[in-house]
């Protein structure tokens, strides 16, 4: 073959390969889109698998309860916006509120009997914004040790609002993180209704979607409880 013929052959073969690659990528894109359209949560199962793989990688290689979320001085506190009221649409009689856990019906005073922990952390929304906010309440680990002793052995913790309109579930290590609080105060004042009075979850190792407001029930279980935003297509782990 002359050099010209060799060049023509190399060109033909390589452009065919590039075209085949482009066709595969395009077909892959269409396939993903059709998988997304068919999925109830809008997420193709293959992407759910990768999110699960990422979770396992993070939990085995990175996650540690000695990794703490950064804390800030009071001067850094911003105005935390109210981003949702799912499960809190109806007004609630605060005095009638009780927290169901492990056969108990607890009052706010029961939770306030635990050591009070204050933390000023950067509250991070899954949307991408964040606001430095101060919270105070009881550690979920202290709460569990007192009111649901032995439940630390379970795999998951589930939370629900009183009407079950909003619900989240957590992996146990994140739930037992020392910065994970059942909070009843925000920025030095009792929690307001729109921020989840009388009791909300504050978990700085997770996005805001896991920080359930107006908790009505907590359960410690081995089968993963439902999670509101996971059903809407978000990563279940949602860890930071």
């Amino acid at each position, binding site marked *: 073959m002359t050099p010209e013929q060799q060049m023509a052959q*190399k060109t033909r073969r390589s452009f065919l390969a590039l075209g085949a690659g482009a066709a595969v990528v395009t077909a892959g894109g269409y396939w993903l889109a059709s998988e997304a359209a068919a999925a109830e949560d809008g997420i193709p199962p293959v992407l759910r698998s990768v999110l699960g793989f*990422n979770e396992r990688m993070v939990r085995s290689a990175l996650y540690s309860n000695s990794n703490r979320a950064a804390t800030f001085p009071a001067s850094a506190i911003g105005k935390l916006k109210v981003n949702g009221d799912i499960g809190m649409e109806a007004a609630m009689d605060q005095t009638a509120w009780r927290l169901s856990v492990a056969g108990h019906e607890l009052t706010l005073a029961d939770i306030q009997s635990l050591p009070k922990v204050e933390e000023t952390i950067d509250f991070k929304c899954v*949307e*991408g914004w964040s606001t430095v906010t101060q919270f105070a309440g009881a550690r979920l680990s202290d709460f569990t040790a007192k009111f649901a002793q032995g439940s630390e052995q379970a795999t998951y913790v589930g939370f629900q609002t009183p009407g079950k309109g909003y619900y989240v579930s957590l992996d146990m290590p994140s739930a037992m993180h020392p910065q994970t609080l059942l909070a009843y105060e925000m920025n030095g004042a009792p929690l307001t209704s729109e921020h989840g009075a009388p009791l909300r979850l504050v978990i700085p190792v997770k996005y805001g979607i896991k920080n359930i407001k107006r908790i009505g029930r907590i359960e410690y279980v081995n089968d993963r409880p439902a999670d509101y935003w996971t059903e809407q*297509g978000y990563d279940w782990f949602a860890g930071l």
Partner: protein
Amino acid sequence: MKVLAEKHKLATRWFHWINFPILMAMIFSGLLIYWAYDPYRIGLGQVTLFHFFPSGFYAMTGVGQKLAIGMALHFALAWIFALNGLAYVIYTAVSGEWRELVPEKKSFGEALRVALHDAGFKIPLPPQGRYNAAQRITYSGIVVMGGLSLLSGLAIYKPVQLGWLTALLGGYEWARWEHFWLTMSYVGFFLIHIAQVIRAGWANFRSMVAGYDLIEESK
């Protein structure tokens, strides 16, 4: 008499053509995520010259209300982006190809001459190897930027578990800002890159696909 001359190694071409659709998909899925909180702009104080992005842009591209799948795509494709980039860096380092890529001392002065020449000034081009001085700086820069995108991405992805990295980049909000502007820089690079490839002509483009070029035999 013309002879075949190898211009780009097979490995380089693979890395390049894998990276192209992956980077596009990363930018696209990144846009789905950015839409949910889009604070960046060009402006000063009260004056905004350009907001990223105008509502018409979102309407035209249809990227709104897709945060969940945007995140799922971004955190899956990031693996391919990272592994392909890492493989490229290792290959370039081990094969010695880096010698033709990394800027030399003289590259910075020469790059200015290349830029002026390309801009239409009648300045002779300095002698060059596989890449000219401007290409050495740009192509090495884009690799460094790829690394920074990966690091700033990880800093936003796990700001507690990788808190040291997030702090190193100036905190959570700065890391997101850096990640965004690196991406805008890719878009700028891409536009100039395409323009230069069109100007350089068919044989140059063909060599990035086929790997070879036909050149006059040197005596």
